[in-house]
């Protein structure tokens, strides 16, 4: 009996290790390729270490290398600067996160802690939108943003997500509902109005869930591709995901600049990985919550 259980554990760990290896290997391969020279890759397609080690791919992607240098290592002759796209991604994701979390928390407060006629009906309408597949609203939203003359502007990219998402309102309302009313009551006795109660009591007491939501929102908007592809292709507002798609399609069909592409890919993924490394536990714990949605 004892022995069989132990063997089960060994087999279990073996499977787990394989899964982790399969999970991590592509990240390593990204790293390994990004430090290779594209021209040399064919000569060592399965080498575990970078082929003909060079920082050239990063220099190309970050707009630091001359055309001659780039072409010599198998890059394209056009210059790209992923610094610019990084800036755009930071601007877009930060704006969306700040706006969405703040305005959604205000609405969630009204739904959870205030009493007013029609409250539940309005909330039901909000939550129903959770079930609408994004494409259904995306096309008309594109038309709207175009009509407003906001194509290829930051505002056009952030606007649909800036004021609320049904999920954000729903998520925060759940937490606000759980706050003990006595604290609020005490504040009111001290003469605090609703605005004061919201800023001084509700927000500080919900730091945890708000931070969780902010992280999830940041990651989601950082990784979003479809919407910015539709409204923000222009270079000056192009975010990293869109830039990657364009970079991939620009590389000549015969010989893509694989090292450059992997350097760019890693560069685009790095901020999220750093965020994850710093806030790991909170991100992992948040998965249970979103599942309840």
């Amino acid at each position, binding site marked *: 009996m004892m022995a069989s259980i132990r063997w089960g554990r060994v087999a279990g760990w073996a499977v787990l290790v394989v899964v982790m290896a399969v999970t991590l290997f592509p990240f390593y391969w990204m790293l390994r390729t990004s430090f290779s020279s594209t021209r040399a890759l064919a000569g060592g397609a399965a080498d575990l270490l970078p082929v003909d080690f060079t920082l050239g791919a990063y220099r190309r992607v970050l707009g630091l290398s001359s055309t001659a240098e780039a072409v010599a290592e198998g890059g394209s002759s056009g210059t790209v600067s992923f610094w610019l796209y990084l800036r755009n991604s930071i601007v877009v994701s930060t704006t969306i996160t700040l706006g969405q979390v703040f305005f959604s928390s205000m609405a969630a407060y009204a739904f959870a802690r205030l009493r007013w006629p029609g409250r539940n009906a309005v909330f039901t309408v909000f939550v129903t939108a959770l079930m609408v597949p994004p494409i259904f609203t995306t*096309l008309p939203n594109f038309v709207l943003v175009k009509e407003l003359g906001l194509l290829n502007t930051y505002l056009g990219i952030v606007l649909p997500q800036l004021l609320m998402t049904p999920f954000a309102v729903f998520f925060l309302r759940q937490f606000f509902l759980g706050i003990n009313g006595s604290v609020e009551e005490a504040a009111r006795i001290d003469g605090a*109005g609703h605005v004061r109660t919201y800023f001084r009591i509700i927000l500080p007491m919900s730091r945890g869930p708000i931070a969780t939501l902010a992280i999830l929102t940041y990651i989601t908007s950082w990784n979003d591709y479809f919407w910015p592809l539709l409204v923000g292709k222009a270079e000056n507002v192009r975010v990293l995901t869109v830039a990657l798609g364009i970079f991939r399609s620009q590389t000549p069909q015969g010989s893509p600049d694989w090292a450059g592409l992997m350097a760019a890919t890693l560069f685009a993924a790095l901020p999220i990985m750093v965020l994850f490394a710093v806030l790991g536990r909170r991100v*992992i714990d948040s998965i249970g919550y979103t*599942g309840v949605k």
Partner: protein
Amino acid sequence: MTSDTVRAAPRLTPGTVPKIPPSRRRRLGDLPVAALFILPAAVGFAVFYLWPAVRGVYLSLTKYNVLTPPRFIGLDNYERLLGDHLFWNALKVTGEYVLINIGTQTVISMLLAVLLYRLTKSMLVRGIVLLPYLVANVVVALVWFWMLDFQLGVVNNVIEWLGFDRVAFFGSDWAIPTIAGINTWRHMGYTALLIFAGLQMIPPSVYEAAAIDGASEWRTFWRVTLPLLRPVMALVMVLSVIGSFQVFDTVAVTTGGGPINATRVIYFYIYDQAFNRFNFGYAAALSSVLFVLLAGIAYLQMRLSRAAESDLRGS
């Protein structure tokens, strides 16, 4: 304490709602303040959710190329859709993708969740399996596009080294299974953690009872764990299937719908109609159909899996 309350009470509301007589105030409750708090979100909701939903239905009844005003054509788009073999192809390709993706993802995630639950509490292990989910679809697609490249990709070089023929992973036969596999790789850790959260909700007492009855691990899993996990699994499945139907990013940056139409999934077909062929009205009709389809599938899934009921209460 009581006297404090009494003294404080008059100060409460007059500051916020001064002129409304008491009876009306009771009926309206906190409405004025609530309206203020809800205003930004309500505007966002009305302009970017409600209005486009209404407008989407309207546009689906028009011929519209974005440059000239939409022209009402009744149900023509829907009629056209029925005879559009590319639409049916898109449904077929998407269905194939969803089946492979959900099939592999569910089995692997379930296994992974049980292993995590039984073997370790390590946050590092959980963090590692979650990692692919946090990285953009586009990033994941490009990395696998490179690793699965016919000539230079590491996977094909290993396959050849093992003595097999190279595989055209993005050729017409393999493209859909490949893309499904890539997204399984991205989502399996995330789905496993959702199921893991469900496993943690099962009270240990039922396992103790099963052990006392002498049930084997295998039997316990099928007879105890799985039935008790059903509500969580139902929810996870509904969310995964709906998400899976909306595959776009991976296709867009790898095959672009090809070869020929082998990977022209429904989302990509809608995108193509709207932004490459400027058939906005037709694209809107396609997305309306997708919406109804997804709602129907979600409803069926919920019904079949009796998601709202829990076996825990009954037994």
